[in-house]
């Protein structure tokens, strides 16, 4: 039995259902809207597990599901050494979002990461503490800043409403996922001109240990190369 983990609600769930439907596999929620049980039509020995998108990486690594749909950002942030346990099978063409660094729009002197580095140094000297970057993507952001040799900053945890932290003076900059940039603009933030820290999209992943004829059959039905 192949257990397929899919986000349990919202647009991400609908688009995932559409993606599978385009490939001849009909996924649906059984029963009422509130019930997290699912049905699979058009494929043998596949069961649907509806999960919060944020839990899918963990469930995949633990082997409680063989296949899962989630964002590349979540896998890379939550699973250190993820490639050792998980295979990235196919980008699904939706759920696009970039992990970016943004600073206050009013900072006329800040367009690049070099600017932010220099501002962070001044800020630390002036305020006696390191410039704060609010994010929930601690590992990705820290690794990226380390690879660019940025110093004089600190990360502060923000699990939601990250764009508001600058106006609330709990952070000077933010690192967050954005698709259109609208929320950033509404909060008077601008994106640094660097390439994003990560370009993420909804992606079909498999647990490495689950590979075998059964999984191959399902994947070839979907037209996905393992």
């Amino acid at each position: 039995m192949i257990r397929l983990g899919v986000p349990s609600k919202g647009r991400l769930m609908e688009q995932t259902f559409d993606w599978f439907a385009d490939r001849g596999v009909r996924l649906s929620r059984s029963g009422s809207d509130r019930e997290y049980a699912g049905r699979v039509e058009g494929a043998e020995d596949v069961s649907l597990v509806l999960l919060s998108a944020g839990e899918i990486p963990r469930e995949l690594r633990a082997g409680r599901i063989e296949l899962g749909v989630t964002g590349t950002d979540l896998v890379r942030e939550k699973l250190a050494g993820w490639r050792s346990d998980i295979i990235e099978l196919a980008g699904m063409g939706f759920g696009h979002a970039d992990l970016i660094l943004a600073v206050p729009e009013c900072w006329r002197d800040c367009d690049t990461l070099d600017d932010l580095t220099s501002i962070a140094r001044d800020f630390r000297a002036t305020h006696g503490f390191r410039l704060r970057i609010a994010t929930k993507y601690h590992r990705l952001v820290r690794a990226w800043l380390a690879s660019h040799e940025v110093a004089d900053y600190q990360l502060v945890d923000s699990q939601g409403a990250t764009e508001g932290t600058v106006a609330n003076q709990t952070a000077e900059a933010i690192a967050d996922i954005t698709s259109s940039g609208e929320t950033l603009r509404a909060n008077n933030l601008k994106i640094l001109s660097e390439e994003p820290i990560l370009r993420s999209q909804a992606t079909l992943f498999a647990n490495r240990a689950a590979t075998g004829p059964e999984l191959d059959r399902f994947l070839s039905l979907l037209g996905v190369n393992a």
Partner: protein
Amino acid sequence: MTSKRDKQVLGQKLLAAFRDAGAVEIAPDILLPAESLLDLYGEDIRARAYVTADPIRGEMMLRPDFTVPVVQAHMENGAEPARYCYLGEVFRKQDMGDTRPENPRDNEYLQAGFELFSREAGADAEIFALFHRLLASYGARSETGDMGLLRDAVRGLPLPDPRRDALLHHIWRPLRFQRLLARFSTPAMARDFPEPRANWSGLRSESEMVTRIARLRADAATAPLPAIWSERLERLFAVRGPAPEALAALRELASDWSGIAPAVERIETRFAAIANAGIDPAQVVFDASHGRTTMEYYDGFTFSFLAGHPDWPPLATGGRYDALTAVLGKGRAIPAVGGIIRPGLLAELEAT
């Protein structure tokens, strides 16, 4: 696999040797307040150290190294000169990238250390000779460097203060240093600072920005640094070899670059003292870039002892960290040099 007990025994032997060398043993806490470590090392330490929470004391860190607690203890109640030694576990996590390493590094291991707080000349050679004596029978190779040499080289560049300070600040970050140097070596580009569409927000004040913009405008009028200087720096960073050869190369560089002459003299004096201690300088590597990427708080002499195994961490590392004592000393400062040996690695060597 060498047992923890064997490693302990070896650590105790090192500790006894440190005591014989005049050190007083101290035993810093294992759980340290995270704040001063985070302020000192920044986010990098968060990726490497275990952080835990205490309901009353706040964020605590499992001891990632001894230097900070030893310096703090000395600055609070130590008399000078002082020699300290210690033995205990440090804890380091390894945040692997995309792939899990096949042989993860130990996340807890022993360090036996010796720290010397002293204004006496010859402290560098004393500690190097002590470590050399303890490690000679393990066939360890030694490599040394001197961050003071690099700092003097940068200080002596014909640059306005803001440019010089920026280079000095990033001397431990080679990529960023190189980017700045390249920028300072080409004509500056005038830059626009368009009026913002948004109101001011955040803790950084408008006057901080105005100050920086004024600095950037002044900088745009600065003539580029003549190419000879980045060439000299490049030659200096590349100096590496057995100490006598490296010193000859440094002397040659210093002959038409007076800014580094005093530092070169200091290094010569140090190697003379090392030779006096019975160590052949030809067996010691001097690498001008030693310690540039891994040892941020060292600002003078640096050293490491390496085993024959290329994938092993050094058996021992150390160096001078005068500036750190000033940062932690709340206004007081004292020259300090120290180092650690990893008894666990020595025990592995003995077992094979």
